[in-house]
């Protein structure tokens, strides 16, 4: 509890947390917060020549290229982007922790196979891998989340692995072992609690990465399928219009940067607070 208090004393962290909470609430309550149906293509939402409308009293963030209300799409898009960000990161942390922990603690052939595989995945150009996977499995919200997780677990596994190796060599584990404690007991009562801060930090920092990756995949057209809005595919749909209708890029762009920044700031502060030895390392 005390760590939380110290954390909140930093204005940047407090603001970030506030922003995250706000986005989460807006995403959950999007049906009430959004002024319009995000998929409704309004006839009067386009000019007679088919151009999108700039922000005005009715469409407060303007309309998109199909005459839909941008604000409503952003609010619903927060759902998609957050959902994928959290889900993908959750899976990535789970896989990464499992692999890293097994490899670091069990060692032996299983451990080395796992770490060799991790090395292999490290050598893959991540974005290319994600694009190829997305093309094979034909993107839906779930598939996109899975694809991102497939790419993102690798780094976490590496970190957990080296921490586990270091922990396993520490005296108290040795003592337990000589006292005849079972492996599982060591694992759950000693290793995991010590690893928890690292996992927590990565769980927070990782969301930033997954949100960005989702946006990038959508930007390249292999992300979430239309008409489901996500912050990335809103930009994808209007990218060529960004000189004539900059609001279509600026609003979702700012949203992506802000959310990713908020998670980064919180995660970084969490890292400082939970584990001073990790400070500043990326």
């Amino acid at each position, binding site marked *: 509890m005390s760590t939380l208090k110290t954390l909140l004393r930093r204005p940047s962290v407090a603001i970030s947390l506030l922003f995250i909470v706000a986005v989460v609430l807006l995403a959950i309550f999007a049906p009430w917060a959004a002024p319009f149906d995000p998929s409704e293509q309004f006839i009067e939402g386009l000019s007679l020549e088919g151009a999108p409308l700039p922000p005005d009293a009715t469409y407060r963030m303007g309309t998109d290229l199909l005459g839909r209300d941008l604000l409503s799409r952003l609010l619903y898009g927060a759902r998609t982007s957050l959902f994928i960000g959290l889900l993908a990161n959750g899976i990535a942390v789970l896989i990464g922790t499992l692999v890293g922990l097994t490899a670091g603690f069990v060692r032996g052939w299983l451990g080395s196979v796992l770490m060799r595989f991790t090395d292999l995945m490290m*050598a893959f150009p991540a*974005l290319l891998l994600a694009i190829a996977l997305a093309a094979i499995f034909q993107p839906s919200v779930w598939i996109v989340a899975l694809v991102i997780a497939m790419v993102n677990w690798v780094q976490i596994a590496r970190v957990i692995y080296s921490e586990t190796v270091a922990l396993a060599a520490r005296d108290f584990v040795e003592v337990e072992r000589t006292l005849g404690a079972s492996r599982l007991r060591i694992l759950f009562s000693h290793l995991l609690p010590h690893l928890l801060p690292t996992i927590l930090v990565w769980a927070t920092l990782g969301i930033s990465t997954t949100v960005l990756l989702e946006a990038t995949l959508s930007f390249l057209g292999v992300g979430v399928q239309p008409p489901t809005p996500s912050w990335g595919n809103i930009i994808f749909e209007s990218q060529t219009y960004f000189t004539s209708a900059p609001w279509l890029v600026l609003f979702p762009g700012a949203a992506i940067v802000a959310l990713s920044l908020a998670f980064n700031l919180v995660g970084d502060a969490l890292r400082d607070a939970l584990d001073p030895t990790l400070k500043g390392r990326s």
Partner: protein
Amino acid sequence: MFAFIARRVVYSILILLGVTLITYLLLFMLPADPARQIAGRSATPEIVANIRHQLGLDLPFYQQYFQYLKGLLHGDLGRSFIQRSQVSELIGARLVPSLQLMGLGIAFELLIGIGLGIVAALKRDSFIDRLLMAFSFVGVSSPQFIAAMLFLYFFAVRLDWFPMGGYGEFRHILLPALTLGILGSGWYSRMVRSSMIEVLHQDFIRTARAKGLSRMRVVFRHVLPNAIVPVIPMVGIDIGIFMGGLVVVESVFGWPGIGQLAWQAIQQVDIPVIVGVTTVSAVAIVLGNLLADLVIPLVDPRIDVKKH
């Protein structure tokens, strides 16, 4: 030392083999038929079958993969299905622009990152420190496509400081390289800042200061060389991240590199090109890591090679 290098090299080659295997496997699963794309819309199913057979696409997976490996041994990456030219030629023509962009991009990253890191560490907890760290956080949190589009819009379209795209002269490379450099510098500035602070607190620095050496001299002769060690492996890892960034930045700025080649090939399911680009990228990443592994012991006396 030699045994260490040899082991690392052999291991790297195994990793690369694994990368080609997985890439091939993924592409084998793709629901698209390159033979049909080649045959065009006036082709009868017999013509398509004939082409499929010529390309060896009717062979089982392992045979196709072994064919590919056999070619690879002779330096042959195969022929593009769509462009019909040697993949090695296609990649070769685009490798130089990508390497230029990557080289200058990483140079900007280091220059900006280390520079800001030093300033921030020296002015620790001041307003400037906060500002610089905020800048690096925003950089790290921004997706490349948004930054690239905004930079293009403001600096090229609005202010007309840079050309909007193209390749050939130095002025063309500046904006894309700066985009990559500014965004990526955040990692380095944060790392340099914290390792500088750590070194600044160490005894030998205090001793040096106490001996009456000037502050600048201490910083550049003693602090920086020590603080920069963790940056080196970071550059190795960075190459992998850069490869992803190239796809996005090259497509926004129209840079004729392998990122654009990769994107086009994925759209057209041009399998030989996709495998080729992935392999070349993996080579770059593995080389980067290998170099980092080899360079660290040289610059950091604290690490003993034999322990590895």
